[in-house]
């Protein structure tokens, strides 16, 4: 089996699993309790907070534990909106290809009367910092741009955007779910005010993540309850999950340079191999992308059947086709970079992990070639394209 869907989720590392199991068994006290085992649990989460803060260049007080990336995105955006609203600022800038945790939150605010500007991400899948500057108005309360796209892996000019936001005095949030643990992220150097992250994207457990909020930014609660997280999120803390998240992140950070260099090489090998398939195209900028992300469109075939046949060959991947999204439209990300419906249905995302070998990459290439050729052999679109009755798009 070759697991190539690491942008969806990753396998937990041994370090993280061991720590999680240890705390599930041993650290069962409630961190809010005064007695020994409660205080022990409190120490565990505070140490985790400190470790996480250290990795991203934050102060521990600026880290808030959440149930994952989606909750962090929701809380960051809602908080910035509430702060803006009080000053009569109800304009938010984002991009057309954000994660739905961001886009759907923005839609909710739009219904409340906020005005949302979604910036173009161009054919290369990269937003232009200067276009952020041009879009900022006197009533802009937030700019939210993802660090790296979850489908096509393109890395955004976060530092430049952050600098512009600082100059203009506008809050800047980044959904860094795909970036943290994979490429260097530093909230200080990158001029970030709010950042969302999720543990299971870097070999940590599911159901836990964190929100970084720069000192002085008042957060709005999504969950009311006790005084946990300094009153910013009610509910007894997920002690084993938080400890395992910190362990996974520390491990990812310590090996980042080595891993990124290694995975990038495999990625480039995979890209070169898939490019040999006629009438195919890579989605998003080829260079400026996450180390493990490969995303292609193949003309004349549909993504779900491609995924099912790859699964039969022991390869797990994902697609932006409508059939896999459960809606009639293909991925909003592919449409945002200008792919037309016809070819967006035939997309394939392969997201590699650090342990992938050259042999496995070659196996993926051969399998994709075989399956694409097979599906094209009885595709009426492919027949029309080959007969010259239709023009190739790719």
């Amino acid at each position, binding site marked *: 089996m070759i697991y190539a869907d690491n942008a969806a989720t990753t396998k937990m590392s041994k370090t993280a699993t061991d720590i999680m199991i240890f705390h599930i068994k041993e650290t069962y006290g409630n961190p809010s309790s005064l007695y020994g085992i409660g205080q022990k649990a409190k120490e565990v989460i505070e140490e985790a907070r400190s470790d996480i803060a250290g990795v991203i260049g934050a102060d521990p007080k600026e880290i808030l534990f959440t149930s994952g990336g989606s909750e962090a995105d929701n809380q960051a955006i809602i908080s910035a909106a509430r702060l803006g609203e009080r000053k009569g600022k109800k304009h938010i800038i984002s991009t057309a290809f954000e994660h739905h945790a961001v886009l759907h939150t923005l839609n909710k605010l739009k219904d409340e009367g906020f005005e949302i500007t979604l910036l173009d991400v161009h054919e290369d899948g990269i937003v232009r910092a200067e276009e952020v500057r041009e879009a900022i108005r006197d009533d802009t309360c937030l700019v939210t741009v993802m660090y790296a796209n979850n489908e096509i892996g393109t890395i955004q000019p976060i530092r430049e955007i952050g600098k512009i936001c600082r100059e203009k005095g506008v809050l800047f949030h980044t959904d860094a779910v795909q970036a943290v643990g994979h490429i260097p992220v530093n909230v200080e150097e990158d001029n970030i005010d709010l950042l969302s992250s999720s543990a299971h994207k870097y070999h940590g457990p599911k159901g836990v993540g964190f929100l970084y909020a720069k000192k002085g930014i008042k957060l709005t609660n999504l969950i009311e309850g006790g005084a946990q997280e300094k009153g910013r999120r009610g509910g007894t803390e997920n002690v084993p999950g938080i400890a395992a998240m910190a362990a996974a992140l520390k491990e990812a950070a310590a090996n980042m340079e080595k891993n990124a260099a290694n995975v990038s090489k495999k990625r480039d090998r995979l890209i070169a191999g898939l490019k040999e398939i006629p009438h195919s195209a890579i989605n998003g900028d080829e260079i400026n992308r996450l180390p493990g992300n490969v995303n292609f469109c193949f003309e*004349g*075939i*549909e*993504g*779900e*059947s491609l995924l*099912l*046949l790859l699964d*039969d060959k022991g390869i797990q991947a994902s697609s932006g*086709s*409508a*059939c896999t999204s*459960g809606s*009639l439209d*293909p991925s909003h990300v592919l449409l945002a970079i200008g792919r037309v*419906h*016809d070819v967006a*249905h035939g997309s394939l995302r392969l997201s590699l992990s650090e342990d992938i070998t050259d042999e496995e990459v070659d196996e993926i290439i051969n399998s994709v070639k075989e399956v694409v050729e097979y599906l094209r052999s*009885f*595709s*009426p*679109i*492919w*027949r029309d394209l080959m007969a010259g009755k239709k023009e190739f798009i790719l």
Partner: protein
Amino acid sequence: MALYSEKVMDHFRNPRNVGVIEDADGVGEVGNAKCGDIMKMYLKIEDEIIKDVKFETFGCGSAIASSSMATELIKGQPVSEAMKLTNKAVAEALDGLPDYKMHCSVLAEEAIRLALEDYENKKKA
């Protein structure tokens, strides 16, 4: 639970009657690339009996399986019987389809109906 029944996976992995009939007596094509599904059916008819049927499909697993099953259901049948084929019969023969995939069986029914209509029109001409 798996996304599809074993029957669907079988017809998807080993589709029956794949291909083209060059001198078909009736051809029907439905769907469009924008929606992500296109089915094309070819019929060879002798003495009002469907002697041969082939299909080509661009689409998801259930679209391919529905095409395959629909061709199996009408092969060797009289034209009058094939006209009665419903999407429900296709879905049932596949041991069911997920709700949001039922349109795939509708496409199969429509493609066969169009191919039969094409045959009737050619006969009149």
